[in-house]
């Protein structure tokens, strides 16, 4: 099939970007979306043009690097998958496909479709851990955890940190991401000692990074490639409020 691509091109963070139209011909339905871009890039390279830059790595839907906004939706039109798992059979001959980077103040564009998502790392560094050193920990089976709780914590832990939730949100809120991380540890016994400190530290960092507020539209949940539930946001809000109610030294 033949496609028309409208791709956001931006030389670097300091330059203004614009849409550039490219023709992608003889696209095989078996190609992944990123492989389609690879072929376009090979052509651009041969013509002496700068290839389209985009983040990608594992290409099996787990590393969270790929991050394209395709026809107005993070990771494209299909539910529950990342861009690298999107295949061209989803599109029809002569379709026009608009490809943009994540749009959020806290995710500045680096070049073309690649954005800087280090804000997510900094939020994690603010408190997304259990303070245990290597060695000297109890036997793994000394901490029994009910299966339903373990499974629920796992559901939160499946977040791949891609940022689709932020890109999907009209406020560019990072609440789904942060709450998934907070929830995982808040559900588990290992996370209890630092539970209230953690939630405050991570929310404070989230705010400092310039993410927007949550207005409960649920777009994040709808676009999350790992289908993480907004129940996590409710859980985080509850912990955050509780933390504010208890004395500083107890939090």
């Amino acid at each position, binding site marked *: 099939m033949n496609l028309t691509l409208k791709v956001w091109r931006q030389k670097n963070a300091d330059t203004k970007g614009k849409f550039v139209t490219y023709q992608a011909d003889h696209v095989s339905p078996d190609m992944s979306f990123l492989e389609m871009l690879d072929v376009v890039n090979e052509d651009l390279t041969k013509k002496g043009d700068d*290839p389209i830059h985009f983040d990608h790595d594992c290409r099996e839907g787990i590393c969270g690097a790929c991050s394209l906004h395709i026809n107005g939706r993070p990771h494209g039109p299909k539910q529950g998958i990342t861009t690298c798992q999107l295949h061209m059979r989803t599109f029809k001959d002569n379709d026009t496909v608009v490809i943009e980077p994540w749009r959020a103040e806290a995710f500045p564009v680096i070049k073309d479709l690649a954005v800087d998502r280090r804000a997510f790392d900094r939020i994690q560094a603010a408190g997304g851990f259990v303070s245990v050193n290597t060695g000297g920990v109890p036997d793994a089976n000394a901490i029994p955890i009910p299966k339903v709780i373990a499974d629920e914590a796992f559901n939160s832990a499946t977040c791949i940190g891609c940022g689709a939730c932020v890109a999907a949100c009209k406020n560019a809120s990072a609440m789904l991401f942060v709450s998934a991380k907070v929830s995982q540890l808040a559900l588990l016994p290992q996370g209890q000692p630092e539970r209230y400190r953690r939630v405050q530290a991570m929310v404070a960092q989230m705010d400092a990074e310039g993410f927007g507020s949550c207005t409960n539209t649920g777009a994040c949940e709808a676009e999350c490639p790992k289908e993480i539930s907004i129940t996590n946001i409710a859980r985080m809000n509850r912990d955050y409020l509780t933390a504010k109610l208890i004395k500083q030294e107890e939090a």
Partner: protein
Amino acid sequence: MKLDAKIPEGPLAGKWSKHKFNLKLVNPANKRKYTVIVVGTGLAGASAAASLAELGYNVKAFCYQDSPRRAHSIAAQGGINAAKNYQNDGDSVHRLFYDTIKGGDYRAREGNVYRLAEVSVNIIDQCVAQGVPFAREYGGLLDNRSFGGSQVSRTFYARGQTGQQLLLGAYSALNRQINLGKVKMFTRHEMMDVVKIEGEAKGIVTRDLITGEIETHAAHAVLLCTGGYGNVFYLSTNAMGCNVTAAWKAHKRGAYFANPCFTQIHPTCIPVTGDHQSKLTLMSESLRNDGRVWAPKTVELAQKLRKGELKVTDLKEDDRDYFLERKYPAFGNLVPRDVASRNAKEIVDEGRGVGASGIAVYLDFAEAIGRLGEDAVRARYGNLFDMYQQITDENPYKQPMRIYPAVHYTMGGLWVDYNLQTTVKGLYCLGEANFSDHGANRLGASALMQGLADGYFVIPYTLGDYLATIGPDAVDIKHIAFEDAKKSVVDRVNHLLSLKGTKTVNEYHRELGHIMWEYCGMARTEEGLIKAKGMIRELREDFWKNAMVSGTNNEFNQSLENAGRVADFLELGELMVDDALNRKESCGGHFRLESQTEEGEALRDDDNYAYAAAWEYKGDNQAEVLHKEELVFENVKLSQRSYK
């Protein structure tokens, strides 16, 4: 230089304890005077960086990805082995040791492997303490499964994403140290060279992938945790960015490269669909627990299937050849990875392959669905079936999957001694990037174990011994060695950028991959390897004349990044071929057609090849020099594998 593996004397079970006692310690007050560089933030790198920072060292950590969490450890599906014996089914440290040595076809060191099995139990404790959500039983305790044909259930898992959950655990420990200011993290930085002063590693040169700035970093020691080199085959299950550059630069600076030809090819991957293919997707080998592998009995039937004149579901039972069950009645579809892979290749070479390309065999669940019901099969393999359908647009509940082997893991890597130190003092290598623990073949669920063992429980001890020896005096970043190394990196970058030929770097990479796969893949012959060596040389010469690299240095330039990595693969490829040529025996994943048993199994030659082959770089286009580390087996008896 004579290779000294520094394996402690004495009984196997006491070696590590004794060694730990004999290692020097760094005074707690002095630890903060040391800086350690860690390159790579996968399981080995993140766990090492976090653990060393916890001890009090200053750590500078580097990764090429935009976040340390994206390192390719994240993609491991199956699980992690540990000799916990929680299932009371006869597991022990000794059994895990024995299985790993045997699985590696007796080409790994007893001492290293025993230590690996020993610390495996600590890894699980550590990960649980961090909040890693392993699968659990209703009683609240950890669940285990049997994996990769193991006779005990020792594999801990987190659904189909054990790698991601373990890496997020290590990443959280790393983050904690970043927050405390003990680790300085450099993302989107690629290591371009190692800096040596008076023969010892004292720093690295990096390129900031966003600005292009070439920077130097000084430290008391450098740890390479940079993963495997499977992408030398172009198509593999590795992430797109996985590369050999850091290890290769270290090799050129004096670190020997050991057993480069030992690569693991995984039998259950989704087949290639065309030239546009950029990577291959692995499906957990647990599929072979219930799936039956087959191919049509005749070439004629295969041709009809390929052309679509015959539907696979219409093929009569009599016309199907369940070749693994036929050839290996005892193990059937559960033969080890290398055996399953090689048999699929034989079928395809005979012309009995299926799918449009003819390069695939079937993995059929019809019998399992009949026996267990579709719901039970969905409960076991639902996520894998979904993934398969997503990629191929075929419904594996209704028709057999098509599978074909793909490069998955590299057992070879930088040679290290028992302390994980390379042949360059102060330069260490951890995880998949080193050669140490898996011999000629790695068992399922053992990669995660090794990465974390090296990072959490080995390097924090062994590195201290070296640091205590050299003392805490600061390394002089103004030393001429830094300037020289930086200049050579700048020159190389400029050389790459000057390439304005007619062929893209990808095209060279794909061609190299074809050569490697054809001649240094699942089956190797002397004739083929000699041919491959010539082809790689030609390709490499052509690359430096005719490749095209776009853009400039001072920008985010993925074309330049890729060119540097492919240039290194073009050199590594030749060394792999040399190593495969040298090793005239078959062992594990290295199959020389000239050396097989009557049953067609890998035939080792223990009299002549019970050694690790460590190669020394001698200069561009010079033959590398082979050093042999003889392997001594005092605790296991070498035997021939048989799966009949």
